[in-house]
């Protein structure tokens, strides 16, 4: 293994992110090749966390764009501050004898001072070094936004009709995440490097627990890890991710539980199983079977 990849994994671990070799290699390549990294995987496997860790590694700002259906330019890129423009316009009218021409007025109110920067524009205009741009849950935005994003990620420049073209001061590190609620377009996928994160192995999950919930004893972490592994082998509609594991461990700590038993699990099941059908499926003795696998 390249020493750089190993040391990247170590650096991430120091920041509390346990990266397996696949994650470290993908992040290393994305950084070296200066390409966006598209991360897919089930909810709660730690996709967003990678961008946060990257920002801390680079000691830079994390700029986050949360995607949703109907996301458009005015909420993702820029918007003019209409109220301010309007006020300035009225002021200009009342300035008396020196009436301004339409051109002068336009220059006045379509200046940078009247521009509201949204995440994408902020990411390319940041002056102090490249930021990390996290485009979260890109699968929730629609095809049109994806096409727009493709253009931005190719050239790292945007054209604002009133202002002209703005080039990136520094090309940001870009991380895109997707829960795969829909297929990401081929063109966008090809523009990025690609990483698919699986649910962690038992060994990795226990290491994550040690890093993120240091208060949990080695014994409890093992039991939680085994329980989660056994749970994921069941056919659940909403597979619990690492995020749930961590929440659960913290909940157990607050309740001062040192090991898993039937009562404890039943009381805190809401931390990890969040689907009504799944809870029902686990009701008829299935939960005891999972518990037996974890503690037996």
């Amino acid at each position, binding site marked *: 293994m390249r020493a750089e990849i190993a040391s990247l994994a170590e650096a991430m671990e120091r920041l509390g992110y346990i990266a397996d070799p696949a994650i470290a290699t993908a992040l290393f390549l994305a950084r070296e090749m200066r390409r966006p990294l598209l991360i897919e995987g089930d909810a709660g496997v730690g996709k967003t966390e990678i961008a946060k860790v990257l920002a801390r590694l680079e000691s830079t700002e994390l700029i986050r764009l949360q995607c949703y259906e109907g996301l458009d330019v005015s909420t993702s890129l820029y918007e003019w501050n209409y109220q301010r423009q309007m006020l300035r316009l009225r002021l200009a009218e009342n300035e008396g004898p020196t009436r301004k021409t339409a051109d002068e*007025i336009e220059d006045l109110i379509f200046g940078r001072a009247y521009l509201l920067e949204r995440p994408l524009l902020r990411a390319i205009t940041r002056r102090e070094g490249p930021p990390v741009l996290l485009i979260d849950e890109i699968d929730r935005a629609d095809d049109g936004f994806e096409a727009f994003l493709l253009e931005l990620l190719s050239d790292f420049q945007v054209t604002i009709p009133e202002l002209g073209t703005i080039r990136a001061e520094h090309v940001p590190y870009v991380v895109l995440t997707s829960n795969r609620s829909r*297929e990401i377009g081929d063109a966008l996928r090809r523009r990025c490097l690609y990483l698919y994160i699986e649910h962690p192995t038992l060994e990795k999950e226990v290491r994550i627990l040690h890093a993120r919930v240091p208060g949990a004893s080695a014994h409890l972490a093992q039991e939680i890890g085994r329980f989660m592994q056994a749970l994921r082998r069941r056919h659940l509609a909403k597979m619990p991710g690492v995020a749930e594991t961590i929440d659960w461990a913290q909940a157990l700590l607050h309740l001062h539980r040192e090991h898993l038993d039937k009562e404890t699990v039943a009381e805190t099941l809401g931390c990890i199983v969040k689907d009504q059908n799944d809870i029902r499926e686990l009701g008829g003795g299935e939960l005891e079977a999972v518990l037996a696998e974890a503690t037996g």
Partner: protein
Amino acid sequence: MSRPDLAGMDGLVGHLARFAGALRDSGVSVSLNDEADGLTALTLVDLGDRDEVRRALRTTLKIRPRDAARFEEIFGRMWRVGSTAAPDHPALRAPRLDRPPMRPKPVGGAPRPRRSETGVETAVPEGGEEPGYSPEAVLRRKPFEECGAADLLAMEQLLARLALRLATRRSRRRVPVRGRGETDLRRSFRRALAHGGEFLSLARRARPIERPRLVVLCDTSGSMDPHARFLLGFVLALRRVARGSEIFAFNTSLVRLTPWLRPGRVDLVLDRLAASVPDWSGGTRIGECLADFVAKYLDSTVDGKTVVLILSDGLDRGDVAPLAGAMRAIQARARRVYWLNPLAGDARYEPTARAMAAALPYLDRLLPAHNLESLARLLPLLAA
């Protein structure tokens, strides 16, 4: 993108090209750009570490989870430790040596020329098989079992026209409109400037019409044989207007057909499909196949905007429990679920076949699909 220094890397370049070719031959889409990315990555990682090479190629060739098994299999076959030093080792040779390693393809993710070759233009029948003498009305009611190859060509044109009428719904995105709609401040303001800051008229915006996404699951078992070709032809025509549709075939196992669908005549495409689907015209295991679909593809292909079409006669002697479970999962996620049954065209038909009865509670509609007219009636339903 700057190419890495290729001097001394000829063996690696050639081998990577053969590897990408083998992936493409097995249905994993890998573009020339991906190859270039892969090559760049190989200059950055430890070539002696086979796992690291594997991970780097998975990331840079953008291998999705559903292609992972094929990637691993081909990688295991074609990359040995130190394989790059001896690319001519027999074990490393790609199955097809006649292919030049890098085909002159448009670089830069240019879209494949799909639309330039729609069936309407290419489906010119030869010789005396003019479709014109076959009156449209007759063709529209002719049961699929009685149709021949010539009818298929004529129907393809009809289908293409029908598909254009594919119904639609309103998008959540807003675009400029004249007349009615909500006020668009940004454009209103621009307009006002032309009149020295007076708002003489307001710009409007509204939600445009949006075409639905389709996911089609087509039964290709023996009992469906007379129908499958026409239903798939219909689906291919729909695909030209409903972008991003996904098509699956099932009989005893499930196959994702989408990667195989290339522009060209529908009958040729269908022949290619028949060759690529194992057990075409064989038996059926609807329940297992749909459960397989739910496990592997449901999350990535079906969302709240998707209409799921299942084309099957529901004749299956297998266990119905997995079928009901799968149908429940599909219904929970999709906008609408329709089951097209060629048998339902008969007025005496009742959905009593065990599989059909099990699926019925989870369907929005059970529809006949025995002739073109019944398919035409389906189109307005594909919207809402």
